[in-house]
């Protein structure tokens, strides 16, 4: 996507557009300089938001569209990931695994449709589905997870990472939805479902013996339970034990370990961190 071309197109239609966006110029410049591949995936979302702000001036509406389109992008990723798994011969054994993945796949597809409908109904424009490379190889098909649809252990490891990351991603944008009424409630209703999925997949991996260490339905410290450093960014920061200035370890004399204290609170991830994590999966 060529950002300059789009700005030029807008100027053709509305010569004052860039002037009206003047106060946003430095932000726009930051994005252009943000760097290579990351900027390409980040720009459609962020630019759409700046565009709406410049025109509508109603920051809450633009913020809400921005967050919902961000959520939609992540839901597209998950929906296509699970749909692909269900058509991959020999990947998912019948019974608990197949049933569980079918359930999750149904939810992710429903989330995509729900968000598209919600954005459209509110007068926004849903982002298009990106092209994905589930190997994590930026379109090469040769990334660290290239066998994800052949190897059940690897597939479930990627699934867990997507779900845990999704939980953190929604949380990372929650602050922008303060006062968002139904939209905030909708985001929360999806967020907790992602956490249910994450819990299920983690428990399943534990029971299949494919987890590393003492894998639990909740996140202990910053342990991924996955034998790959490629997923670590999705878990860094989960180890905190201090919440809003309140230390949870041994709080008020109760023997709460650092592990339990970290497990008890899931941590947010900023949009920048999430976009960096999913960058390799988005072509």
């Amino acid at each position, binding site marked *: 996507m060529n950002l300059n071309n789009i700005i030029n197109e807008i100027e053709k239609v509305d010569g004052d557009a860039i002037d009206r966006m003047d106060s946003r110029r430095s932000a726009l410049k930051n994005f252009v300089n943000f760097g290579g591949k990351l900027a390409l995936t980040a720009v459609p979302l962020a630019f759409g938001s700046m565009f709406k702000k410049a025109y509508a001036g109603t920051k809450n509406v633009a913020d809400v569209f921005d967050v919902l389109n961000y959520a939609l992008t992540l839901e597209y990723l998950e929906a296509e990931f699970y749909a692909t798994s269900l058509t991959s011969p020999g990947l998912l054994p019948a019974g608990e695994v197949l049933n*569980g993945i079918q359930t999750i796949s149904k*939810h992710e597809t429903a989330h995509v449709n729900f968000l598209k409908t919600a954005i459209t109904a509110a007068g926004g424009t849903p982002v298009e589905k990106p092209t994905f490379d589930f190997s994590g190889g930026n379109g090469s098909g040769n990334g660290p997870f290239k066998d994800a649809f052949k190897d059940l252990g690897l597939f479930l490891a990627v699934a867990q990472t997507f779900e845990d990351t999704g939980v953190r991603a929604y949380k990372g944008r*929650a*602050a922008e939805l303060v006062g968002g009424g139904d939209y905030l*409630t909708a985001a929360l209703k999806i967020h907790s479902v992602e956490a249910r999925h994450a819990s299920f997949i983690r428990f399943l991996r534990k029971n299949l013996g494919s987890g590393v260490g003492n894998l*639990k339905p*909740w996140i202990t410290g910053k342990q991924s339970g996955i034998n790959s450093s490629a997923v670590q960014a999705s878990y860094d920061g989960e180890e*905190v034990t201090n919440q809003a*200035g309140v230390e949870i370890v041994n709080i008020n004399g*109760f023997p709460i370990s650092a592990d339990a204290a970290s497990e008890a609170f899931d941590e947010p991830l900023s949009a920048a961190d999430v976009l960096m994590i999913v960058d390799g999966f988005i072509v």
Partner: protein
Amino acid sequence: MPKSQFTQERLVASREEIAQLSRRRFLGYASAATGLIAVASSCKKEATSSNPSSLDGVDLGSGDPGILNYAYALEQLEAAFYTQVIMTQYSGISATETALLTDIRDHEISHREFFKNALKDAAIQDLEVDFSTIDFSSRDSVLATAKAFEDLGVTAYNGAGRLIVSADYLVIAGKIVSVEARHAALIRELIMKGTFADDTALDADGLDGARKPSEVLAIAGTYLKTKINADNLPTY
């Protein structure tokens, strides 16, 4: 500072900076809120004769501190339940189940004590629970109650989110609700495989539920001897 510049700076700010900022704002807000609560409750004492409903049960308070007290009440209930579950373990409990339920107990105690410390003087009293309907020696009874509490907790936080004014409080609620959802899914899997997010929890859009405080307290009240008064909570 223009809004979009702020957004950009926030986007590239390090996680540590965000955490520090959140902490400062949270603490600032909490102390201001504590002052407000003190004023509100002292006013109410004088007004009780003309406001009979305020005599009826423990007043959660108003605004964000009221919502935090609401969460504190629910976490008191959950923590008391799992504390009992671990003290008097049901017959046939497996080592895996003991470990998982002990973890959950510790999470709920962490939540409860967090709210207590965050609310400081505005915190409601310790609640007295009524678990007379629960058979703690029975796996079925314990897990069915756990499932009800965890699913209820998820819908409670999902429903209360929109009533929270402070972004920092909202994020804290978000940090807790996803852990409750992890608990809910696990308990459901212990009861029956494949039910972690079935149609009894989710709607046709694949969304979890959301309940208003009044709806949640009507259900939770079954397990509480202490009466809760949510009259001053914000509504929608």
